[in-house]
Protein backbone atom coordinates (compact mmCIF):
# COMPACT_ATOMS: atom_id res chain seq x y z
CA UNK A 1 0.00 0.00 0.00
CA UNK A 2 0.97 3.63 -0.48
CA UNK A 3 2.16 5.62 2.53
CA UNK A 4 -0.69 8.08 2.13
CA UNK A 5 -3.34 5.37 1.91
CA UNK A 6 -1.97 3.83 5.06
CA UNK A 7 -2.43 7.11 6.95
CA UNK A 8 -6.15 6.89 6.18
CA UNK A 9 -6.42 3.29 7.38
CA UNK A 10 -4.42 4.08 10.50
CA UNK A 11 -6.77 6.97 11.29
CA UNK A 12 -9.81 4.72 11.08
CA UNK A 13 -8.13 1.92 13.05
CA UNK A 14 -6.99 4.10 15.92
CA UNK A 15 -10.48 5.43 16.57
CA UNK A 16 -10.06 8.86 15.02
CA UNK A 17 -13.29 10.91 15.26
CA UNK A 18 -12.79 13.33 12.41
CA UNK A 19 -10.63 14.14 9.41
CA UNK A 20 -10.74 17.52 7.65
CA UNK A 21 -8.61 18.21 4.61
CA UNK A 22 -8.04 19.89 1.28
CA UNK A 23 -6.47 18.22 -1.78
CA UNK A 24 -2.81 18.81 -2.60
CA UNK A 25 -0.19 16.64 -4.30
CA UNK A 26 1.58 14.53 -3.06
CA UNK A 27 -0.83 13.67 -0.20
CA UNK A 28 -4.30 13.70 -1.78
CA UNK A 29 -4.64 9.91 -1.39
CA UNK A 30 -5.22 10.36 2.34
CA UNK A 31 -8.66 11.93 1.91
CA UNK A 32 -9.41 9.91 -1.25
CA UNK A 33 -8.85 6.68 0.66
CA UNK A 34 -11.00 7.87 3.55
CA UNK A 35 -13.83 8.79 1.19
CA UNK A 36 -13.58 5.37 -0.41
CA UNK A 37 -13.54 3.57 2.95
CA UNK A 38 -16.63 5.49 4.21
CA UNK A 39 -15.72 5.18 7.92
CA UNK A 40 -18.85 7.19 8.86
CA UNK A 41 -20.78 4.00 8.10
CA UNK A 42 -18.55 1.80 10.27
CA UNK A 43 -16.82 3.62 13.12
CA UNK A 44 -18.83 6.83 12.80
CA UNK A 45 -15.76 8.88 11.91
CA UNK A 46 -16.53 12.23 10.24
CA UNK A 47 -14.65 12.97 7.00
CA UNK A 48 -15.04 16.38 5.40
CA UNK A 49 -13.44 18.08 2.42
CA UNK A 50 -12.94 21.68 3.46
CA UNK A 51 -12.71 24.77 1.24
CA UNK A 52 -9.08 25.43 2.18
CA UNK A 53 -6.34 24.40 4.56
CA UNK A 54 -7.23 27.43 6.65
CA UNK A 55 -10.68 25.95 7.06
CA UNK A 56 -9.39 22.40 7.64
CA UNK A 57 -7.08 23.40 10.47
CA UNK A 58 -9.83 25.47 12.06
CA UNK A 59 -12.20 22.53 11.78
CA UNK A 60 -9.50 20.52 13.51
CA UNK A 61 -9.31 23.28 16.13
CA UNK A 62 -13.09 23.23 16.60
CA UNK A 63 -13.18 19.44 16.89
CA UNK A 64 -10.19 19.37 19.23
CA UNK A 65 -11.90 21.94 21.48
CA UNK A 66 -14.66 19.38 22.00
CA UNK A 67 -12.16 16.69 23.05
CA UNK A 68 -12.45 14.60 19.89
CA UNK A 69 -9.54 12.85 18.17
CA UNK A 70 -9.26 14.90 15.00
CA UNK A 71 -6.67 15.26 12.27
CA UNK A 72 -5.77 16.79 8.94
CA UNK A 73 -3.13 16.20 6.30
CA UNK A 74 -1.57 18.34 3.63
CA UNK A 75 1.67 19.14 1.85
CA UNK A 76 3.99 22.11 2.30
CA UNK A 77 2.02 25.03 0.73
CA UNK A 78 -1.12 23.84 2.51
CA UNK A 79 0.69 23.50 5.81
CA UNK A 80 1.79 27.13 5.52
CA UNK A 81 -1.89 28.09 5.44
CA UNK A 82 -2.34 26.08 8.62
CA UNK A 83 0.28 27.87 10.64
CA UNK A 84 -2.19 30.33 12.20
CA UNK A 85 -4.31 27.41 13.37
CA UNK A 86 -1.31 25.49 14.72
CA UNK A 87 -0.38 28.45 16.90
CA UNK A 88 -3.95 28.64 18.24
CA UNK A 89 -4.00 24.89 18.87
CA UNK A 90 -0.74 25.09 20.81
CA UNK A 91 -1.89 28.23 22.66
CA UNK A 92 -5.20 26.72 23.69
CA UNK A 93 -3.40 23.44 24.54
CA UNK A 94 -5.36 21.23 22.20
CA UNK A 95 -4.50 17.73 20.96
CA UNK A 96 -4.67 16.90 17.26
CA UNK A 97 -2.63 15.31 14.47
CA UNK A 98 -1.36 17.11 11.39
CA UNK A 99 0.37 15.21 8.57
CA UNK A 100 2.76 17.11 6.31
CA UNK A 101 3.76 15.11 3.25
CA UNK A 102 6.46 17.59 2.26
CA UNK A 103 7.23 18.76 -1.26
CA UNK A 104 9.91 21.10 -2.54
CA UNK A 105 9.55 24.85 -2.06
CA UNK A 106 9.63 27.74 -1.51
CA UNK A 107 6.39 29.00 -3.01
CA UNK A 108 4.42 26.59 -5.11
CA UNK A 109 7.72 24.81 -5.73
CA UNK A 110 7.60 21.26 -6.97
CA UNK A 111 5.48 18.22 -6.19
CA UNK A 112 8.60 16.11 -5.67
CA UNK A 113 9.78 15.11 -2.17
CA UNK A 114 11.68 17.49 0.07
CA UNK A 115 12.53 18.03 3.71
CA UNK A 116 12.47 21.80 3.42
CA UNK A 117 9.85 22.23 6.13
CA UNK A 118 12.02 21.05 9.03
CA UNK A 119 12.33 24.56 10.43
CA UNK A 120 8.62 25.19 10.01
CA UNK A 121 7.69 21.96 11.78
CA UNK A 122 10.29 21.96 14.55
CA UNK A 123 10.69 25.63 15.37
CA UNK A 124 7.01 26.41 15.84
CA UNK A 125 6.32 27.56 12.32
CA UNK A 126 3.93 30.29 13.41
CA UNK A 127 3.74 33.17 15.88
CA UNK A 128 4.42 32.72 19.57
CA UNK A 129 6.72 30.52 21.64
CA UNK A 130 5.51 27.01 21.00
CA UNK A 131 6.43 23.58 19.73
CA UNK A 132 4.61 20.88 17.88
CA UNK A 133 5.45 17.28 18.70
CA UNK A 134 7.10 16.14 15.44
CA UNK A 135 7.43 12.53 14.28
CA UNK A 136 9.41 11.54 11.18
CA UNK A 137 8.40 8.19 9.64
CA UNK A 138 10.85 6.49 7.27
CA UNK A 139 8.64 3.68 5.96
CA UNK A 140 5.05 2.90 5.08
CA UNK A 141 4.80 0.85 8.28
CA UNK A 142 5.90 3.85 10.32
CA UNK A 143 3.38 6.05 8.48
CA UNK A 144 0.79 3.66 9.90
CA UNK A 145 2.26 3.35 13.38
CA UNK A 146 2.92 7.05 13.82
CA UNK A 147 -0.75 8.02 13.48
CA UNK A 148 -1.72 6.22 16.69
CA UNK A 149 1.48 7.32 18.41
CA UNK A 150 0.89 10.94 17.42
CA UNK A 151 -2.63 10.86 18.83
CA UNK A 152 -1.41 9.31 22.09
CA UNK A 153 1.32 11.93 22.51
CA UNK A 154 -1.02 14.76 21.50
CA UNK A 155 -3.53 13.77 24.18
CA UNK A 156 -0.87 13.01 26.79
CA UNK A 157 0.47 16.55 26.51
CA UNK A 158 -2.60 18.32 25.10
CA UNK A 159 -0.47 19.60 22.27
CA UNK A 160 -0.72 19.36 18.47
CA UNK A 161 1.45 16.62 16.94
CA UNK A 162 2.80 16.59 13.40
CA UNK A 163 3.84 13.66 11.27
CA UNK A 164 6.55 15.12 9.05
CA UNK A 165 6.67 12.80 6.06
CA UNK A 166 7.58 13.62 2.49
CA UNK A 167 6.40 12.90 -1.02
CA UNK A 168 8.66 9.88 -1.29
CA UNK A 169 7.19 8.06 1.72
CA UNK A 170 3.67 9.22 0.90
CA UNK A 171 3.84 7.79 -2.61
CA UNK A 172 5.96 4.76 -1.86
CA UNK A 173 4.35 1.28 -1.84
CA UNK A 174 5.41 -1.21 0.82
CA UNK A 175 3.91 -4.02 2.83
CA UNK A 176 2.25 -2.93 6.03
CA UNK A 177 0.89 -4.78 9.05
CA UNK A 178 -2.33 -3.28 10.37
CA UNK A 179 -3.17 -3.04 14.05
CA UNK A 180 -6.56 -3.92 15.51
CA UNK A 181 -9.64 -1.72 15.00
CA UNK A 182 -9.95 0.35 18.17
CA UNK A 183 -13.42 1.67 18.94
CA UNK A 184 -14.02 5.42 18.91
CA UNK A 185 -14.57 6.84 22.37
CA UNK A 186 -18.18 7.24 23.42
CA UNK A 187 -19.35 10.68 24.49
CA UNK A 188 -19.52 9.41 28.10
CA UNK A 189 -15.88 8.25 27.96
CA UNK A 190 -14.89 11.53 26.39
CA UNK A 191 -16.61 13.60 29.09
CA UNK A 192 -14.79 11.56 31.75
CA UNK A 193 -11.36 11.53 30.12
CA UNK A 194 -11.34 15.11 28.84
CA UNK A 195 -13.20 17.11 31.51
CA UNK A 196 -11.69 20.32 30.10
CA UNK A 197 -13.39 19.98 26.70
CA UNK A 198 -16.22 22.14 25.34
CA UNK A 199 -18.73 19.34 24.91
CA UNK A 200 -21.77 21.10 26.40
CA UNK A 201 -22.15 21.39 30.18
CA UNK A 202 -24.27 18.27 30.41
CA UNK A 203 -21.91 15.87 28.65
CA UNK A 204 -20.92 14.11 31.88
CA UNK A 205 -24.55 13.19 32.55
CA UNK A 206 -24.67 15.35 35.68
CA UNK A 207 -24.26 18.82 34.26
CA UNK A 208 -21.19 20.90 35.08
CA UNK A 209 -21.83 24.02 37.19
CA UNK A 210 -19.68 26.22 34.98
CA UNK A 211 -19.18 26.27 31.24
CA UNK A 212 -15.80 25.19 29.85
CA UNK A 213 -13.98 27.89 27.92
CA UNK A 214 -11.31 27.00 25.37
CA UNK A 215 -9.23 30.02 24.48
CA UNK A 216 -5.67 31.15 23.82
CA UNK A 217 -6.54 34.74 24.74
CA UNK A 218 -5.30 36.33 27.96
CA UNK A 219 -4.86 40.08 28.16
CA UNK A 220 -3.21 40.15 31.60
CA UNK A 221 0.54 39.84 30.96
CA UNK A 222 1.24 38.39 34.38
CA UNK A 223 -1.21 35.55 33.67
CA UNK A 224 -0.03 35.13 30.07
CA UNK A 225 3.51 34.66 31.33
CA UNK A 226 2.36 31.88 33.65
CA UNK A 227 0.60 30.19 30.72
CA UNK A 228 3.83 30.41 28.72
CA UNK A 229 5.78 28.91 31.60
CA UNK A 230 3.31 26.05 31.72
CA UNK A 231 3.81 25.43 27.99
CA UNK A 232 7.59 25.49 28.38
CA UNK A 233 7.40 23.03 31.29
CA UNK A 234 5.42 20.73 29.00
CA UNK A 235 8.11 20.99 26.29
CA UNK A 236 10.82 20.21 28.86
CA UNK A 237 8.85 17.12 29.94
CA UNK A 238 8.62 16.00 26.30
CA UNK A 239 12.37 16.48 25.90
CA UNK A 240 12.90 14.39 29.02
CA UNK A 241 10.48 11.55 28.23
CA UNK A 242 9.56 11.27 24.58
CA UNK A 243 12.75 11.28 22.50
CA UNK A 244 12.81 8.44 19.98
CA UNK A 245 15.62 7.55 17.61
CA UNK A 246 17.22 4.63 15.84
CA UNK A 247 20.99 4.14 16.04
CA UNK A 248 22.52 1.99 13.31
CA UNK A 249 26.15 0.89 13.70
CA UNK A 250 26.89 3.81 15.97
CA UNK A 251 28.65 1.83 18.72
CA UNK A 252 32.10 1.72 17.12
CA UNK A 253 31.57 4.51 14.62
CA UNK A 254 34.22 7.09 13.75
CA UNK A 255 31.72 9.13 11.78
CA UNK A 256 27.95 9.41 12.17
CA UNK A 257 25.36 10.50 9.67
CA UNK A 258 22.27 12.13 11.14
CA UNK A 259 19.26 11.79 8.84
CA UNK A 260 15.49 11.39 9.17
CA UNK A 261 12.61 10.11 7.06
CA UNK A 262 13.33 9.15 3.46
CA UNK A 263 16.89 10.52 3.69
CA UNK A 264 17.63 8.04 6.45
CA UNK A 265 16.57 5.13 4.22
CA UNK A 266 19.10 6.17 1.62
CA UNK A 267 21.77 6.76 4.24
CA UNK A 268 21.46 3.24 5.62
CA UNK A 269 22.76 2.04 2.23
CA UNK A 270 25.62 4.54 2.56
CA UNK A 271 26.53 2.99 5.92
CA UNK A 272 26.78 -0.46 4.32
CA UNK A 273 28.89 0.86 1.46
CA UNK A 274 31.22 2.69 3.84
CA UNK A 275 31.61 -0.32 6.10
CA UNK A 276 32.50 -2.47 3.06
CA UNK A 277 35.33 0.00 2.39
CA UNK A 278 36.45 -0.17 6.01
CA UNK A 279 35.10 3.24 7.03
CA UNK A 280 33.41 3.01 10.41
CA UNK A 281 30.25 4.89 9.66
CA UNK A 282 27.07 4.94 11.74
CA UNK A 283 23.61 6.41 11.23
CA UNK A 284 21.55 8.17 13.83
CA UNK A 285 17.93 8.52 12.75
CA UNK A 286 15.81 10.84 14.89
CA UNK A 287 12.24 9.46 14.97
CA UNK A 288 11.05 12.40 17.02
CA UNK A 289 12.36 15.62 15.47
CA UNK A 290 10.80 17.54 18.32
CA UNK A 291 11.80 16.59 20.96
CA UNK A 292 15.20 16.21 19.25
CA UNK A 293 17.70 13.52 20.37
CA UNK A 294 20.10 16.17 21.64
CA UNK A 295 21.57 14.13 24.50
CA UNK A 296 22.28 11.09 22.32
CA UNK A 297 24.14 13.23 19.81
CA UNK A 298 26.02 15.04 22.55
CA UNK A 299 27.12 11.66 23.96
CA UNK A 300 28.22 10.43 20.53
CA UNK A 301 30.17 13.65 20.06
CA UNK A 302 32.43 12.57 22.92
CA UNK A 303 33.83 9.68 20.89
CA UNK A 304 33.26 10.19 17.14
CA UNK A 305 35.36 12.28 14.75
CA UNK A 306 32.53 14.09 13.01
CA UNK A 307 28.88 14.24 11.97
CA UNK A 308 27.24 14.65 8.58
CA UNK A 309 23.66 15.86 8.61
CA UNK A 310 22.04 14.58 5.44
CA UNK A 311 18.79 16.30 4.51
CA UNK A 312 16.68 17.04 1.45
CA UNK A 313 17.17 20.76 2.05
CA UNK A 314 19.91 23.38 2.25
CA UNK A 315 20.76 22.62 5.87
CA UNK A 316 18.12 22.88 8.58
CA UNK A 317 18.41 19.99 11.04
CA UNK A 318 22.19 20.50 10.92
CA UNK A 319 21.65 23.50 13.20
CA UNK A 320 20.18 21.26 15.89
CA UNK A 321 23.00 18.75 15.43
CA UNK A 322 25.54 21.57 15.85
CA UNK A 323 23.78 22.78 19.00
CA UNK A 324 23.94 19.25 20.40
CA UNK A 325 27.59 18.73 19.44
CA UNK A 326 28.44 22.19 20.75
CA UNK A 327 31.73 22.49 18.90
CA UNK A 328 33.22 19.20 20.15
CA UNK A 329 33.80 17.80 16.62
CA UNK A 330 33.09 19.02 13.06
CA UNK A 331 29.46 18.92 11.87
CA UNK A 332 28.85 19.18 8.13
CA UNK A 333 25.73 19.12 5.99
CA UNK A 334 24.95 17.46 2.70
CA UNK A 335 21.68 18.06 0.92
CA UNK A 336 19.78 18.24 -2.34
CA UNK A 337 16.90 20.56 -3.02
CA UNK A 338 13.98 21.25 -5.30
CA UNK A 339 12.72 17.67 -5.28
CA UNK A 340 16.07 16.14 -6.29
CA UNK A 341 17.08 13.09 -4.27
CA UNK A 342 20.61 11.93 -3.46
CA UNK A 343 21.92 8.41 -3.92
CA UNK A 344 23.99 6.52 -1.30
CA UNK A 345 27.26 6.87 -3.29
CA UNK A 346 26.85 10.60 -3.52
CA UNK A 347 26.48 10.80 0.25
CA UNK A 348 29.60 8.68 0.81
CA UNK A 349 31.51 11.00 -1.53
CA UNK A 350 30.31 13.99 0.47
CA UNK A 351 31.34 12.33 3.72
CA UNK A 352 34.84 11.70 2.41
CA UNK A 353 35.21 15.17 1.01
CA UNK A 354 33.77 17.10 3.93
CA UNK A 355 34.88 15.06 6.92
CA UNK A 356 37.46 12.35 6.19
CA UNK A 357 39.47 14.35 3.63
Amino acid at each position, binding site marked *: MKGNEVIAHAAIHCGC*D*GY*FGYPITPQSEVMETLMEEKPWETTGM*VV*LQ*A*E*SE*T*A*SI*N*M*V*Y*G*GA*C*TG*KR*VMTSSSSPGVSLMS*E*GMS*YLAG*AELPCVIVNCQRGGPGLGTIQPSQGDYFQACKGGAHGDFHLIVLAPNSVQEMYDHVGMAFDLAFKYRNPAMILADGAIGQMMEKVVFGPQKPRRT*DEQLAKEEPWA*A*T*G*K*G*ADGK*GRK*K*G*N*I*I*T*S*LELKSEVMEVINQRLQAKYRAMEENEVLYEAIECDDADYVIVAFGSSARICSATVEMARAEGIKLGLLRPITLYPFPTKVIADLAKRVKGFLSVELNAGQMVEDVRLAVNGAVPVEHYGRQGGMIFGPEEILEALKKKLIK
Partner: protein
Amino acid sequence: MEKVEIKQENLVYAKPRLIKDNVMHYCPGCSHGTLHKLVAEVIDELGMEDKTIAVSPVGCSVFAYNYIDVDWIQAAHGRALACATAAKRLHPESLVFTYQGDGDMSAIGTAETIHAAARGENVVAIYVNNAIYGMTGGQMAPTTLLGMKTATTPYGRDPRLNGYPYKIAEMMAHLDGVSYVTRQSVHTPANVRKTKKALEKAFKNSLNKGGFSLVEVVATCNSGWKQTPVASNEWLEQNMLPFYPLGDIKDTIK
Protein backbone atom coordinates in the same frame (compact mmCIF):
# COMPACT_ATOMS: atom_id res chain seq x y z
CA MET B 1 -22.75 46.97 46.78
CA GLU B 2 -25.70 46.50 49.15
CA LYS B 3 -27.99 43.70 48.12
CA VAL B 4 -31.58 44.85 47.54
CA GLU B 5 -34.35 42.33 48.07
CA ILE B 6 -37.19 42.66 45.55
CA LYS B 7 -40.51 41.06 46.42
CA GLN B 8 -41.66 38.52 43.88
CA GLU B 9 -44.83 40.53 43.02
CA ASN B 10 -42.74 43.59 42.22
CA LEU B 11 -40.37 41.74 39.95
CA VAL B 12 -40.76 42.83 36.32
CA TYR B 13 -37.26 42.16 35.05
CA ALA B 14 -34.47 39.81 36.04
CA LYS B 15 -30.99 39.09 34.81
CA PRO B 16 -31.19 35.97 32.66
CA ARG B 17 -30.07 32.90 34.60
CA LEU B 18 -27.23 32.13 32.18
CA ILE B 19 -25.71 35.63 32.31
CA LYS B 20 -22.70 35.56 34.62
CA ASP B 21 -22.01 38.19 37.27
CA ASN B 22 -18.83 39.43 35.54
CA VAL B 23 -18.75 43.16 34.78
CA MET B 24 -19.14 43.58 31.03
CA HIS B 25 -16.32 45.29 29.14
CA TYR B 26 -18.68 46.64 26.48
CA CYS B 27 -19.05 50.41 26.19
CA PRO B 28 -22.30 51.81 27.62
CA GLY B 29 -24.80 51.95 24.75
CA CYS B 30 -23.25 49.07 22.78
CA SER B 31 -25.68 46.56 21.26
CA HIS B 32 -23.64 43.51 22.33
CA GLY B 33 -24.96 43.62 25.92
CA THR B 34 -28.62 43.54 24.87
CA LEU B 35 -28.00 40.79 22.36
CA HIS B 36 -26.06 38.69 24.88
CA LYS B 37 -29.08 38.85 27.17
CA LEU B 38 -31.38 37.60 24.39
CA VAL B 39 -29.04 34.76 23.46
CA ALA B 40 -28.80 33.67 27.12
CA GLU B 41 -32.59 33.76 27.48
CA VAL B 42 -33.25 31.75 24.34
CA ILE B 43 -30.70 29.04 25.23
CA ASP B 44 -32.33 28.71 28.65
CA GLU B 45 -35.91 28.73 27.35
CA LEU B 46 -35.08 26.02 24.81
CA GLY B 47 -33.60 23.95 27.65
CA MET B 48 -30.25 23.79 25.82
CA GLU B 49 -27.91 25.03 28.57
CA ASP B 50 -26.28 21.59 28.85
CA LYS B 51 -26.02 20.98 25.12
CA THR B 52 -24.71 24.27 23.82
CA ILE B 53 -21.30 24.76 22.23
CA ALA B 54 -20.87 28.42 21.38
CA VAL B 55 -18.11 29.93 19.24
CA SER B 56 -16.74 33.44 19.70
CA PRO B 57 -14.10 34.58 17.25
CA VAL B 58 -12.12 37.82 17.39
CA GLY B 59 -13.82 41.20 17.79
CA CYS B 60 -15.39 43.00 20.74
CA SER B 61 -17.50 39.94 21.47
CA VAL B 62 -14.46 37.67 21.77
CA PHE B 63 -15.17 37.83 25.51
CA ALA B 64 -18.76 36.62 25.16
CA TYR B 65 -17.50 33.55 27.03
CA ASN B 66 -17.11 35.69 30.14
CA TYR B 67 -20.78 36.60 30.12
CA ILE B 68 -22.92 33.67 28.97
CA ASP B 69 -22.45 30.53 31.02
CA VAL B 70 -22.26 27.72 28.47
CA ASP B 71 -19.32 25.89 26.88
CA TRP B 72 -17.34 28.17 24.56
CA ILE B 73 -14.75 27.84 21.83
CA GLN B 74 -12.74 30.98 21.16
CA ALA B 75 -11.83 30.91 17.47
CA ALA B 76 -9.24 32.74 15.40
CA HIS B 77 -10.37 35.90 13.58
CA GLY B 78 -12.87 34.89 10.89
CA ARG B 79 -12.67 31.14 11.47
CA ALA B 80 -15.71 30.68 13.71
CA LEU B 81 -17.83 28.81 11.18
CA ALA B 82 -15.06 26.34 10.35
CA CYS B 83 -14.79 25.57 14.09
CA ALA B 84 -18.57 25.38 14.41
CA THR B 85 -18.76 23.02 11.43
CA ALA B 86 -16.55 20.46 13.15
CA ALA B 87 -18.14 20.92 16.58
CA LYS B 88 -21.61 20.32 15.15
CA ARG B 89 -20.62 17.38 12.95
CA LEU B 90 -18.87 15.71 15.88
CA HIS B 91 -21.71 16.54 18.32
CA PRO B 92 -24.79 16.45 16.10
CA GLU B 93 -27.27 16.77 18.98
CA SER B 94 -25.71 19.95 20.35
CA LEU B 95 -26.80 23.52 19.77
CA VAL B 96 -23.85 25.10 17.99
CA PHE B 97 -23.79 28.79 17.15
CA THR B 98 -21.26 31.48 16.33
CA TYR B 99 -21.37 35.09 17.45
CA GLN B 100 -19.41 37.19 14.97
CA GLY B 101 -18.76 40.80 14.05
CA ASP B 102 -19.02 42.25 10.56
CA GLY B 103 -15.26 42.41 10.14
CA ASP B 104 -14.96 38.85 11.29
CA MET B 105 -17.66 37.44 9.06
CA SER B 106 -17.57 39.59 5.96
CA ALA B 107 -13.88 40.49 5.68
CA ILE B 108 -11.36 38.00 7.05
CA GLY B 109 -13.83 35.12 7.40
CA THR B 110 -15.78 35.38 4.15
CA ALA B 111 -14.57 32.06 2.80
CA GLU B 112 -15.28 30.10 5.99
CA THR B 113 -18.67 31.79 6.23
CA ILE B 114 -19.87 31.23 2.68
CA HIS B 115 -18.73 27.62 2.61
CA ALA B 116 -20.27 26.64 5.95
CA ALA B 117 -23.51 28.17 4.66
CA ALA B 118 -23.22 26.50 1.26
CA ARG B 119 -22.68 23.12 2.92
CA GLY B 120 -25.85 23.71 4.88
CA GLU B 121 -24.23 23.14 8.25
CA ASN B 122 -26.88 22.89 10.97
CA VAL B 123 -25.54 25.82 12.91
CA VAL B 124 -26.64 29.39 13.58
CA ALA B 125 -24.46 32.39 12.81
CA ILE B 126 -25.30 35.51 14.79
CA TYR B 127 -23.82 38.40 12.85
CA VAL B 128 -23.41 41.72 14.64
CA ASN B 129 -23.10 44.41 12.01
CA ASN B 130 -21.96 47.72 13.49
CA ALA B 131 -20.35 48.86 10.22
CA ILE B 132 -16.97 49.19 11.89
CA TYR B 133 -14.08 47.36 13.52
CA GLY B 134 -15.04 48.10 17.11
CA MET B 135 -12.35 46.23 18.94
CA THR B 136 -9.33 47.61 17.13
CA GLY B 137 -10.41 51.22 17.51
CA GLY B 138 -12.95 51.99 14.81
CA GLN B 139 -11.38 51.25 11.43
CA MET B 140 -13.36 50.74 8.21
CA ALA B 141 -15.20 47.43 7.87
CA PRO B 142 -16.54 45.95 4.60
CA THR B 143 -19.95 47.12 5.86
CA THR B 144 -18.92 50.73 6.51
CA LEU B 145 -21.39 53.02 4.73
CA LEU B 146 -20.28 55.34 1.94
CA GLY B 147 -19.23 58.69 3.35
CA MET B 148 -18.86 57.26 6.85
CA LYS B 149 -15.82 58.45 8.79
CA THR B 150 -13.69 55.85 10.50
CA ALA B 151 -10.08 55.69 11.71
CA THR B 152 -8.97 54.46 8.27
CA THR B 153 -11.44 56.58 6.26
CA PRO B 154 -10.88 59.88 8.07
CA TYR B 155 -12.44 61.83 5.17
CA GLY B 156 -15.37 59.46 4.78
CA ARG B 157 -15.55 56.18 2.83
CA ASP B 158 -14.96 56.95 -0.83
CA PRO B 159 -15.91 54.12 -3.22
CA ARG B 160 -13.09 55.01 -5.62
CA LEU B 161 -10.58 54.59 -2.83
CA ASN B 162 -12.23 52.12 -0.48
CA GLY B 163 -14.77 50.22 -2.56
CA TYR B 164 -18.42 49.71 -1.73
CA PRO B 165 -20.08 48.20 1.32
CA TYR B 166 -21.77 44.86 0.76
CA LYS B 167 -24.53 42.79 2.28
CA ILE B 168 -23.37 39.29 3.08
CA ALA B 169 -26.85 38.30 4.33
CA GLU B 170 -28.38 38.84 0.89
CA MET B 171 -25.49 36.96 -0.70
CA MET B 172 -25.95 34.01 1.62
CA ALA B 173 -29.68 33.89 0.99
CA HIS B 174 -28.88 32.64 -2.54
CA LEU B 175 -27.21 29.50 -1.22
CA ASP B 176 -29.15 26.23 -1.24
CA GLY B 177 -27.76 25.14 2.13
CA VAL B 178 -29.22 28.22 3.81
CA SER B 179 -32.79 28.06 5.05
CA TYR B 180 -33.20 31.15 7.19
CA VAL B 181 -31.72 34.63 6.82
CA THR B 182 -33.07 37.54 8.76
CA ARG B 183 -31.90 41.05 9.63
CA GLN B 184 -32.91 42.54 12.96
CA SER B 185 -31.80 45.23 15.40
CA VAL B 186 -31.96 45.86 19.15
CA HIS B 187 -32.26 49.65 19.19
CA THR B 188 -35.91 49.77 20.41
CA PRO B 189 -37.85 47.46 22.77
CA ALA B 190 -40.03 46.31 19.84
CA ASN B 191 -36.95 45.38 17.83
CA VAL B 192 -35.47 43.59 20.83
CA ARG B 193 -38.56 41.36 20.96
CA LYS B 194 -38.36 40.63 17.21
CA THR B 195 -34.69 39.75 17.48
CA LYS B 196 -35.45 37.32 20.26
CA LYS B 197 -38.10 35.62 18.11
CA ALA B 198 -35.64 35.39 15.22
CA LEU B 199 -33.00 33.80 17.47
CA GLU B 200 -35.54 31.29 18.74
CA LYS B 201 -36.52 30.37 15.22
CA ALA B 202 -32.94 30.02 14.06
CA PHE B 203 -31.89 27.89 17.06
CA LYS B 204 -34.89 25.61 16.62
CA ASN B 205 -34.11 25.27 12.93
CA SER B 206 -30.58 24.14 13.66
CA LEU B 207 -31.79 21.66 16.29
CA ASN B 208 -34.23 20.26 13.71
CA LYS B 209 -31.28 19.96 11.29
CA GLY B 210 -33.04 22.28 8.89
CA GLY B 211 -29.85 23.82 7.47
CA PHE B 212 -27.89 26.99 8.01
CA SER B 213 -29.41 30.08 9.65
CA LEU B 214 -28.08 33.60 9.72
CA VAL B 215 -29.38 36.20 12.16
CA GLU B 216 -27.87 39.57 11.33
CA VAL B 217 -28.27 42.25 13.98
CA VAL B 218 -27.70 45.81 12.81
CA ALA B 219 -25.93 47.27 15.81
CA THR B 220 -24.55 50.52 17.18
CA CYS B 221 -20.95 51.19 18.09
CA ASN B 222 -21.27 54.57 19.72
CA SER B 223 -17.57 54.67 20.68
CA GLY B 224 -16.47 53.84 17.15
CA TRP B 225 -19.08 56.13 15.63
CA LYS B 226 -18.08 58.84 18.11
CA GLN B 227 -21.64 59.57 19.17
CA THR B 228 -23.69 59.33 22.35
CA PRO B 229 -25.71 56.13 22.79
CA VAL B 230 -28.96 58.00 22.04
CA ALA B 231 -27.55 59.73 18.97
CA SER B 232 -26.21 56.36 17.78
CA ASN B 233 -29.66 54.81 17.90
CA GLU B 234 -30.98 57.70 15.81
CA TRP B 235 -28.06 57.48 13.38
CA LEU B 236 -28.69 53.75 13.02
CA GLU B 237 -32.30 54.41 12.03
CA GLN B 238 -31.49 57.21 9.63
CA ASN B 239 -28.38 55.78 7.98
CA MET B 240 -27.91 52.08 8.64
CA LEU B 241 -31.47 50.83 8.17
CA PRO B 242 -32.03 52.35 4.69
CA PHE B 243 -28.97 50.40 3.45
CA TYR B 244 -29.49 47.36 5.71
CA PRO B 245 -33.30 47.02 5.78
CA LEU B 246 -34.78 44.92 8.58
CA GLY B 247 -36.87 41.79 8.13
CA ASP B 248 -36.64 38.23 6.85
CA ILE B 249 -34.55 37.83 3.71
CA LYS B 250 -35.07 34.10 3.28
CA ASP B 251 -37.26 31.60 5.10
CA THR B 252 -37.64 28.12 3.69
CA ILE B 253 -37.97 26.43 7.09
CA LYS B 254 -40.54 23.66 6.83
